[in-house]
C-alpha cells in the first residue's frame, strides 16, 4: 500500500480501527480526512455500530472485528484491560498500532501490566503472537488529535513517537502518522516505548520533532 506517499486519495490503503471510543473515533476521522478507507469495529456486531460510525466518523464503515483486522494497518484503541479480547489469530502478520496505555491512576491496576518490567506494548505484543506491533498515538490526548493535526512542513508541527521491533512496520506507521498530520520520531524498539508511557514527560507534553527527539534521547540516557 502507499501509506506515506503523496498520491491520490484513492491510492491510500485500508485502515482497520478496533475500538470506537474517543481515541478510535478521532483517529478514524483523521484517517478519512487523509484519504484512507477506514473500517471500524468493536466487540459488538457491526450492525450495532452503524449509527455511531455514520454520525461520528462519517465516511468510515462499521464492520465486524475480523474484517477490521484484515486491513493494511490496524489500530488498536480499546480499554487496555480488554486486550485479551483481541483475536490474535486474525491479527497475525498485520501491522498493529498499539494506541493503548497502562495508566493505573485513572484506570486501576491490571495484573498483567503491574507485575512486569516490560513496557505495556511488549505485553500486548507477547499476546498478539505474529503481529508486528508498533506503539504510537498513545501520548496525544484524543481531544488534541484533530486540533493539533497539521500539514506536512507546518511550523512547529506536533510529533508522535514510534516504537517497535519491526523496522518495516515502523516505517509504515511513520508514513501513516505523517498523512494524518503529525511528524514522527523513531524511539527505538518496543521496549523503548516506556519512554512515552503515562507519567513520562513525553506523555504529558506537546513536542515538535526536534524537541521529541531530544526528550527521547534524554529519557534513554536516564533510563
Amino acid at each position: 500500500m502507499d501509506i506515506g506517499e503523496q498520491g491520490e486519495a484513492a491510492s491510500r490503503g485500508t485502515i482497520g480501527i478496533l475500538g470506537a471510543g474517543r481515541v478510535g473515533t478521532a483517529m478514524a476521522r483523521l484517517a478519512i480526512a487523509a484519504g484512507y478507507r477506514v473500517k471500524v469495529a468493536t466487540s459488538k456486531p457491526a450492525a450495532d455500530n452503524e449509527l455511531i460510525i455514520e454520525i461520528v466518523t462519517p465516511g468510515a464503515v462499521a464492520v465486524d472485528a475480523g474484517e477490521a483486522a484484515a486491513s493494511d494497518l490496524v489500530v488498536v484503541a480499546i480499554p487496555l484491560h480488554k486486550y485479551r479480547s483481541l483475536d490474535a489469530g486474525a491479527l497475525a502478520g498485520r501491522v498493529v498500532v498499539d494506541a493503548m496505555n497502562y495508566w493505573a491512576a485513572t484506570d486501576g491496576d491490571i495484573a498483567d501490566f503491574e507485575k512486569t518490567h516490560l513496557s505495556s506494548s511488549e505485553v500486548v505484543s507477547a499476546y498478539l503472537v505474529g503481529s508486528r506491533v508498533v506503539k504510537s498515538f498513545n501520548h496525544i490526548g484524543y481531544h488534541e488529535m484533530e486540533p493539533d493535526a497539521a500539514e506536512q512542513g507546518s511550523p512547529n508541527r506536533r510529533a508522535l513517537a514510534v516504537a517497535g521491533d519491526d523496522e518495516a512496520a515502523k516505517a509504515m506507521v511513520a508514513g501513516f502518522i505523517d498523512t494524518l498530520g503529525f511528524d514522527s520520531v523513531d524511539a527505538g524498539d518496543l521496549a523503548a516505548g516506556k519512554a512515552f508511557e503515562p507519567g513520562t514527560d513525553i506523555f504529558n507534553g506537546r513536542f515538535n520533532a526536534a524537541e521529541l527527539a531530544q526528550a527521547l534521547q534524554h529519557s534513554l540516557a536516564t533510563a
Partner: protein
Amino acid sequence: MEIGAYSFGDTQRNTNGSLQPTGEAIRNLFEAIKHADAVGLDYFGVGEHHTTSMPASSPGALIAAAAAATSRIKLGSAASIISTDDPVRIFQQFATADAVSGGGRIEITAGRGSSVETFPLFGYDLGEYDELYAEKLDLLMAINNAGGNHVTWSGTKRPAIEDLAVVPRPLGGHLPIWVATGGNASSSARAGQLGLPVSYGIIGGEPHRFAPLAELYRRAGAQAGHPADSLKISVAALGLVAPTKQEALERFYPGWYNLNVEMGRLRGWPAPDKRAYDAQAEAPGAYYVGSPDEVAERIVHLHGYMGHMRHFLQTDIGGLPQEHLLESITLLATEVKPRVQRLLARK
C-alpha cells in the same frame, strides 16, 4: 435554557497548601446551594467524589438537606456513581429528597465516574466496569418505571428483587434520570436508545466537537421510537463568572492550578502550564471563564451545536474562596441567564 452550577465540594486550603476540614467544605456547599436558590439559579448538581480535596461523596444526603432549605431550584447528583452503589438506596434517597422538596425538583444523574476511587472503596472489581454500570442503570430504571411501590428485577451483579416495596415513591411518580457521559460515542447511542436525557461533562478540548454526539443521541433516540421532547441534553463544564474577564481569569486560576498539581501527583503530570489555562479559557476552549457577556455568548454559541437545555458550571475547585463562588452563582442567575435567553430569542 436552564443555567446552573455543580460541585464536588471544595476543601479550603491553608497558605502552606494543607487542607482545612472536609466538613467545612460540605457546609460551604450547602450554603452555596441555598444562595443559588435565593438568587434564582435553575439547577445545582452535587458530587460524587471521594477525595479529601473534593469531599462531596454523598449527594443524596446533601440534596435532601438542600431540598428542605430551598424552594425553587432543581437539585440533582452530578453524578451518582451507580456502578459501585446500590440503585435501590440511591432511588430511596432521592425519592426521600423529592418528598422533602415538595416534589418535582429532584433528579438523579447516573454516571460511571471519571476516576476509579469508588471501586476499591466499596469493594468492586474494575474489570466489571462496563457490566456493573449497565446492570445498575437497568435496575435504577426498573425501580423508577415501576407502576406502584413494588419492584421485580433480576440480574447478575446483585441479588434479584422479587416483588418487594421500594419506597417512598416520588410525588410525581417518577424522577428524571439522566445519563452522564464524558463523550464516548456508545454512551450517547445507549442513552438515546433508552430514551433517557443525557448530560455531557465537557472538561477539556473544544466543546463544539461534541456536536456529532448530540446528533447521534437524538438519532438513536428517534430510531428507538422515543419522542423528541423526551430527548434532552445538558452540558456540564468548568467555569467562573466575575464582573470582568480579567477578574474571572485571576479568580479561577489558583484553584485550577492547585487541582492540576494534585491530580498531577496522582497521575504523573508535570506542573500545570499557565498557557494551557489561558488557551482553555478562550473560545473555543473548554472553560467558561469570563464576564457575564462572554460566558453568555459562549453558552449560546455551543447551543448552536448541541441544542442543549441546561448549561451548568463547576466553579469551586482547588480551594476557591467561597465569596468568589457565591458571586459567580449570583452573576450566572442574574446576568448570564437573561443574556442567554435574549440571545436565544434572537436566533
